[in-house]
């Protein structure tokens, strides 16, 4: 009943926003949604061989300005046709943070935030903000290409951040530094809710600096560091008693975004290591390269190449992905995406196990 009431209220607000643009001078409502179709063409792949429709997500984004200098930003996500009665889909708070603006150079944030690392993480849920069907796996969602439990960085963090943007030598510059609880050492199965409490005294520290070296060329550097607890999976499967040993995680990245006339290029390199207390350090890296050309302000064919090496000491575990697609802006803020995704992997890749797969993906994407 409460869910129905909430939906009616949201629909009412959305209807209002069509006429008034803003709910109130101090409250802005935006959002995005994607409806997807995925089909695994190849026999070997683990993708969807039935070819399924997916009510992927609808996100409501609120920006509230209660007083001058203060902003409260919230993104609430309803994924996969959320129906809590049937235990289907899920509701998530992607972020909810307060931001105090001292001036443009210095803003202080507190709450749950995206990790601001590289090009994609902070927009990975908002498919309306980028050309392709999904964000790159090789630099963002590496668990899908054999990257193991530790991503290069957690996708969300709870903590404090300082951020700002200003001109440096007449070119745009922005930065963000984040201090958070970080990873809890067991992605997806945490005994501790990382958005509520930390399971160790070490705090994660990360950040990103971006500079428009030319008007159309933006370069960026990102980093993330954390020290996480270790557990003995055999003696303590529920991870109730940390061993007292620690694993160090460090990642760094370089990014370049170039847009000139109708051409778009993106390059991203992310590397780093996971260094457990025993055994050798795992050095890994991923690369993404995207090229696109927009014509008639509507049609944007694109290609993207991804390469990921989960462990540089292992010679046969790499994965390569080649994507070729078309993004059509049917209406403003309404896009259709169609793409073919070819993945090659080597036998030693723990996720893909040497399978070469081909997928057809398509989506309708709306922003408002």
């Amino acid at each position, binding site marked *: 009943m409460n869910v129905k009431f909430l939906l009616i209220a949201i629909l009412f607000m959305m209807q209002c926003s069509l006429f008034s643009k803003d709910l109130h001078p101090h409250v802005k409502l935006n959002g995005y949604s994607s409806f997807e179709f995925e089909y695994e063409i190849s026999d070997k792949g683990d993708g969807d061989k039935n070819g399924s429709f997916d009510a992927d997500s609808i996100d409501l984004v609120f920006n509230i300005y209660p007083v001058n200098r203060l902003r409260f930003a919230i993104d609430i996500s309803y994924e996969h046709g959320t129906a809590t009665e049937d235990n289907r889909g899920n509701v998530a708070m992607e972020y909810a943070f307060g931001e105090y603006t001292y001036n443009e150079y210095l803003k202080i944030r507190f709450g749950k935030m995206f990790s601001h690392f590289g090009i994609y993480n902070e927009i990975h849920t908002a498919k309306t903000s980028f050309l392709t069907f999904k964000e790159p796996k090789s630099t963002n969602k590496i668990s899908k290409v054999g990257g193991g439990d530790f991503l290069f960085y957690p996708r969300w963090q709870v903590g404090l951040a300082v951020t700002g943007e200003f001109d440096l030598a007449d070119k745009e510059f922005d930065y963000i530094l984040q201090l958070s609880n970080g990873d809890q050492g067991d992605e997806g199965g945490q005994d501790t809710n990382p958005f509520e409490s930390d399971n160790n005294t070490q705090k994660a520290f990360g950040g990103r600096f971006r500079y428009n070296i030319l008007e159309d060329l933006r370069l960026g550097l990102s980093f993330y560091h954390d020290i996480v607890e270790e557990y003995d999976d055999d003696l303590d499967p529920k991870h109730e008693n940390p061993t007292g040993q620690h694993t160090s995680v460090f990642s760094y990245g370089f990014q370049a975004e170039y847009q000139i006339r109708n051409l778009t290029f993106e390059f991203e390199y992310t590397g780093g290591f996971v260094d457990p207390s025993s055994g050798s350090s795992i050095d890994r890296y991923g690369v993404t390269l995207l090229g696109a050309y927009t014509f008639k302000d509507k049609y944007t064919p694109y290609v993207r190449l991804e390469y990921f090496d989960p462990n540089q000491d292992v010679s046969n575990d790499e994965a390569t992905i*080649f994507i070729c697609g078309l993004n059509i802006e049917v209406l403003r803020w309404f896009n259709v995406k169609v793409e073919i995704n070819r993945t090659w992997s080597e036998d030693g890749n723990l996720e893909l196990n040497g399978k070469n797969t081909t997928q057809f993906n398509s989506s309708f994407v709306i922003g408002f």
Partner: protein
Amino acid sequence: MMILKLNSFLKYTCILFVFLFGFFSIGGAESEEIKSEEIKLIIIVSSDVKIKEIDIATLNKIYRGRKTLWKNSNKISAYYVKSGTVTGDAFFKLLGVTYSKFNRYWRKKLFSSAGTPPSSRSNGQSVIDVVSKNESSIGVIPASLKDKIKSCKIIKIK
């Protein structure tokens, strides 16, 4: 079995560039010039805003969300006439950006939680109305509506 390493990476990089250059040469570069009638625009601010003039660089910062506070720390609310209209297209020409580029910029900025875009209105009179009604606001309208301004004020473009 096909093992793809760095040489394959380079191979596909080459394919990517060939694809793009081929497409570029066949399709030709689309002109990004905005085709709109030349109309004169004026900048208006609400009566509480204590500035008399503004330069294009500052205007650009306001509409790109890089300047969000006036000197007295009040939050800036910015309005413009939507694109696709003569006034809207002239506004984007004034900023030196196409609407599609402006839209792409804000789609990323808005949904990466970095701020909210300025609000568009369907015509110049609506911009006058909203700027007159809301404190700390700024808007861009056609000069032909100069006589309709009552509760807000015009500022010079430097």
